[in-house]
């Protein structure tokens, strides 16, 4: 300890002495899940922020109010747990002094960190699906991805009408995200005359779903809904349901995870799966992002990743317009005003006033796809008002 102190002091002095000559750094926090079942989402979000940072850094930095900032992404793992999220949010806000956070992935983690981020006027771009994440009392929280509340209704209506689905079984993680999605889906299926007849809840670390699938099959369902599950869990359920001889429809009306599901379930079990996808891979802007992602990280992107790439760029745009990186109240005001942003997802704007009281929810197109030989084939194009 005694040895470390002078070394640390010297390092700090050196760092400070060099700042007047260096470009200023703008730190963006990535508070995401990097381990466990939600890691595929978390890494996709971290990489999205890094790619957006690369874009501006490649142009000499982010120019705001006459100054150029080198954007640096600081990523921490919340392990998809609320208590871990609070620990790393404290580190980001008080030690790293960030004013912008990409994440968290989960609903429970975002609700847990909001007392810290809102009080300290830190802008949060969360993936958390809970309706409680956005509200008039949470002016610094935004959601750059569409959630079940936006996509489930139109997609379920399309699936029920075109695939003759009447009785549906579903498995949900036993937490805030799972409970919220179960409520949304029960209402959405009921509204179009189908019945979410069997609902099962389980702990997120579960890998053997055979007892639960057995119960669901006993309820004589003609479809299994996977919305709300992590990609690996959805893949395992698909694989095990098919192994148990289930030949009915398997649907995932929310949460993009197709590639991960196919990776875990295998192409054969995933064949014919109906999935929600927020991206059209043929859209030039989306294809370009996917290509950049694969080039840097040597693997395919997760379906949520482009939303957070757009979300990070929306933050940059708002900072430029506000002329400040530190006065986040001004940045929020400019962020809310952005309309028709052309990003990886295509053209998007903010919505949400009717549902949440604030326009902090991204409004972007989404799709229903069918898995054919491990690949998504788009079957319907959707907006909040319906699918065609």
């Amino acid at each position, binding site marked *: 300890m005694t040895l470390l102190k002078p070394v640390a002091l010297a390092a700090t002095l050196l760092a400070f002495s060099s700042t007047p000559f260096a470009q200023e750094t703008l730190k963006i926090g990535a508070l995401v899940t990097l381990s466990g079942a939600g890691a595929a989402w978390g890494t996709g979000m971290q990489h999205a922020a890094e790619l957006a940072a690369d874009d501006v850094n490649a142009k000499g930095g982010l120019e705001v109010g006459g100054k150029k900032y080198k954007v640096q992404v600081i990523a921490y793992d919340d392990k998809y747990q609320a208590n871990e999220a609070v620990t790393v949010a404290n580190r980001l806000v008080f030690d790293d002094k960030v004013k912008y956070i990409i994440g968290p992935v989960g609903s429970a983690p975002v609700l847990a960190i909001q007392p810290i981020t809102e009080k300290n006027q830190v802008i949060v771009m969360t993936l958390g699906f809970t309706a409680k994440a956005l509200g008039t009392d949470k002016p610094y929280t935004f959601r750059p991805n569409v959630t079940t509340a936006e996509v489930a209704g139109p997609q379920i209506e399309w699936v029920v009408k075109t695939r003759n689905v009447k009785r549906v079984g579903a498995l949900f993680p036993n937490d805030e995200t799972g409970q919220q999605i179960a409520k949304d889906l029960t209402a959405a299926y009921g509204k179009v005359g189908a019945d979410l007849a069997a609902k099962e*809840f*389980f702990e997120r*670390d579960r*890998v053997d779903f055979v007892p639960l699938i057995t119960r669901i099959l*006993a309820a004589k369902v003609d479809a299994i809904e996977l919305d709300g599950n992590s990609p690996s869990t959805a*893949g395992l359920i698909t694989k095990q349901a098919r192994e148990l001889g289930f030949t009915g429809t398997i649907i995932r009306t929310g949460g993009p995870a197709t590639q*991960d599901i196919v*990776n*875990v379930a295998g192409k054969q079990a995933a064949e014919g799966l109906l999935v929600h996808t927020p991206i059209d891979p043929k859209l030039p802007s989306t294809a370009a992002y996917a290509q950049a992602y694969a080039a840097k990280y040597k693997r395919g992107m997760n379906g949520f990743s482009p939303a957070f790439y757009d979300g990070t760029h929306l933050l940059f745009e708002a900072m430029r317009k506000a002329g400040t990186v530190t006065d986040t109240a001004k940045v929020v005001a400019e962020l809310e005003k952005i309309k028709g942003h052309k990003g990886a997802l295509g053209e998007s704007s903010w919505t949400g006033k009717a549902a949440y009281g604030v326009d902090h929810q991204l409004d972007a197109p989404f799709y229903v796809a069918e898995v054919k030989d491990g690949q998504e084939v788009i079957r319907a194009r959707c907006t909040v008002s319906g699918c065609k």
Partner: protein
Amino acid sequence: MDLSLLIGQAVVNGLVVGLLYLLMAVGFTLVFGVMRIVNFAHAEFYMLGAFVTFLCVTRFELPFLPSVALTFVVAVIIGWVIEWAVLKPFRHDELNGMIATIGLAMILQNGALMLFGPDPQSMPSVATGVLRMGDLLVPNSRVYVVLCSAAVLLAMWLFLRTSRTGRALRAVVQDIEIAQIQGIKAKLIYPLGFGLGVGLAAVAGGLMAPLFSVSPFIGAGPMLKAFIVVILGGLGSIPGAALASLLLGITESVAGTFLSTSTADILIFALVIGMLVVRPSGLLGRPE
């Protein structure tokens, strides 16, 4: 699906997972028996085994069973080297040994994360179709894995009962000092015991890889259950572990099917707490 069928289905499912827990628990209890250290890296050896089998099957296109056999050999060698290089100073030192294995677990998990990334991957099923016994359905992939697990356990049992080395291992588990007086070379028995324990965990990982998925984080769940099995069966008792594994697997599956998986978890922990109160040495463990 009628009630008797649902019960039958739940019991069969329970037997499958019970055998997984048993494979894990036997390796765990063997390491504890020989070295008197709680191996917190056991979960990571399960994960490592799953990856070795996964690579053999998907990259090198070897058939499944030779891949599992190769996994066992690789794991025993790795276990032997780790015992010799890392754990030798901690033999019979419960606290420091535990800390050393926690460190080992972190190195292995993060190493796997760096090598393979966080995304879960799938291995093709080892068998397709469903075995029908009346109206009872068991996926053939699970039947296959059950038979392989049973064969591995039988081989290990025969090795420990009938071979000279196996008997030496058991003697060390029973009383190290007397075993050494009888001429058993502890310097060979320690790495062998650890290697075999690691080998069993790795084989469990390899056998389960086609049923579940493969990622750096897959070991935690089975490890927790193996821990429960070892406590419930009696620390160091292999027959106790066998009884506890099947009891745990079937309880978990039946309660999970008829009540809920959360209730099943509560029941299991209630069972363990009840056992510790009534019989602290476990089902078939020897009182200290």
